[in-house]
C-alpha cells in the first residue's frame, strides 16, 4: 500500500517530491495506523481522504510549477493576481471536482445517467443510420429475411449461423410463406488472368438470387435455369466494383471467359452499384 502511495506521489512536481516525499510517506503510514482507519469502512474513509488530498494538493503544486515555468512566478506577486479566463475555468473545474468528491452518490447517479444517455443515443443513431440513412439498397428491404440455424451453445457471442444443409434448404424453398428464395455460399476466391491475380469476395449461387433481392444486372443478364442446374455451364456475374476496378467498366465483358478459383467461367452480367 505504501508502495502504491509512493507511485501516486509522482503526481507532484519532482521538486516537491524530492523535498517532502519521505515526510509524506511517513505521514501516510502514521495515518493508516490510526485506530479510526481500521476496518473496511475505515480503510475506505482513509483512501478517500488520501486521494482527495493528493489530487487537490498535486493540482495546486502543478499549477504553481506551470506559473513558475512561464515566468509569472516572481517572488512577490501582487496580493490579488489578475484572474484570467483560464483561472476561472480551472476554478470551476476544481469546484466541480470537489463537489463530485463530496457527493459520491450524486456523482454515481450523474455518471450512470450520462452512460445510459450516451448508450441510448448511440443505439438510436445506429438504428437510424442502418434503417433511415443507409437502408439496404434493395427494394422492399423489410420483406427480406435471412434464415439460418441457431446453435445455442456454439459460443457466447454467436449462436446464429447461416449455414444450411441441402435438405434444409429444400424445406425452406417449399415454404409457402416465402415468395422467392435463394441460397449462396460466400467465400474468397482468386481471379486470375490479366496483370495480377486478385483475391475477391465471391458467392456461389444456388437458385436465382437477383429476383429475390428485386435487382437485375445493369449489363448482360442474370442466371438462366440451365446455368443454375447442377450440370449447367459455368457462368459468373460481376459486382459493379470489380467490373470497374479490374475490367475497366468494359461493356464487352459479357460472354468473355474469366478464371475464378482455377476454373474458367463466362461472364454473363454485371450488377448495379450498391448490390454488394
Amino acid at each position: 500500500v505504501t508502495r502504491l502511495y509512493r507511485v501516486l506521489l509522482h503526481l507532484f512536481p519532482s521538486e516537491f517530491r524530492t523535498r517532502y516525499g519521505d515526510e509524506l510517506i511517513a505521514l501516510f503510514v502514521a495515518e493508516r495506523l490510526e485506530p479510526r482507519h481500521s476496518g473496511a469502512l475505515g480503510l475506505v474513509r482513509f483512501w478517500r481522504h488520501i486521494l482527495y488530498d493528493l489530487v487537490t494538493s498535486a493540482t495546486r503544486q502543478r499549477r504553481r510549477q506551470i506559473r513558475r515555468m512561464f515566468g509569472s512566478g516572481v517572488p512577490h506577486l501582487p496580493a490579488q493576481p489578475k484572474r484570467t479566463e483560464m483561472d476561472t475555468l480551472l476554478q470551476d473545474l476544481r469546484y466541480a471536482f470537489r463537489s463530485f468528491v463530496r457527493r459520491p452518490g450524486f456523482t454515481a447517479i450523474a455518471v450512470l445517467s450520462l452512460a445510459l444517455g450516451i448508450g441510448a443515443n448511440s443505439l438510436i443513431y445506429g438504428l437510424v443510420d442502418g434503417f433511415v440513412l443507409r437502408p439496404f439498397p434493395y427494394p422492399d428491404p423489410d420483406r427480406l429475411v435471412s434464415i439460418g440455424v441457431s446453435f445455442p451453445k456454439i459460443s457466447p457471442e454467436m449462436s446464429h449461423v447461416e449455414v444450411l444443409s441441402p435438405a434444409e434448404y429444400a424445406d425452406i424453398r417449399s415454404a409457402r410463406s416465402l415468395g422467392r428464395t435463394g441460397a449462396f455460399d460466400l467465400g474468397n476466391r482468386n481471379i486470375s488472368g490479366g496483370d495480377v491475380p486478385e483475391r475477391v469476395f465471391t458467392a456461389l449461387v444456388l437458385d436465382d438470387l437477383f429476383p429475390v433481392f428485386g435487382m437485375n444486372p445493369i449489363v448482360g443478364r442474370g442466371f438462366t435455369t440451365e446455368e443454375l442446374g447442377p450440370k449447367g455451364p459455368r457462368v459468373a456475374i460481376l459486382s459493379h466494383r470489380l467490373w470497374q476496378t479490374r475490367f475497366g467498366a468494359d461493356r464487352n465483358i459479357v460472354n468473355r471467359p474469366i478464371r475464378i478459383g482455377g476454373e474458367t467461367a463466362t461472364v454473363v452480367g454485371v450488377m448495379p452499384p450498391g448490390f454488394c
Partner: protein
Amino acid sequence: MRKPARPFSIPVLHILLALAEGTKHGYAIKQDIERRTDGAICLGPGTLYEAIQRLEESGLIAETAPVAPANGQEAQRRFYRLTERGWSALRAEVRSLGTLVDQARANPRLRKGLA
C-alpha cells in the same frame, strides 16, 4: 517564494499555533491541529506539506534539529520551528484577530448568543 496572503488561512494559522507550542514534525503538527479543532480540521499529507513549503519559503518557519533526543523513527523526520519572522507574523495575526473578536463582542445583539 510567494508570501502567504494575510490574513492567514485557518489551516496555516493552526500550523503556526502548533509550532508556537514547540518544535514539531509534520505528523505531530497534524495531530496537534486535530486535537485543537476536535477533528474538524484534518489535513492530508499533501495539503500539510504544501502549507509547510509555503511557510518555509516565506521564512515564517524553518527546519530544525529535534529538541529532545528522538527515537529511531522520529529522528529521521524533519522538525520545524517558528522563525523570528514567524513569531511576529503570528503575533500580528493574533492581535488583529483579537481586535476583530473584541469588535464583534462589543455588538450587544451579537453578544447575546455568545457565552
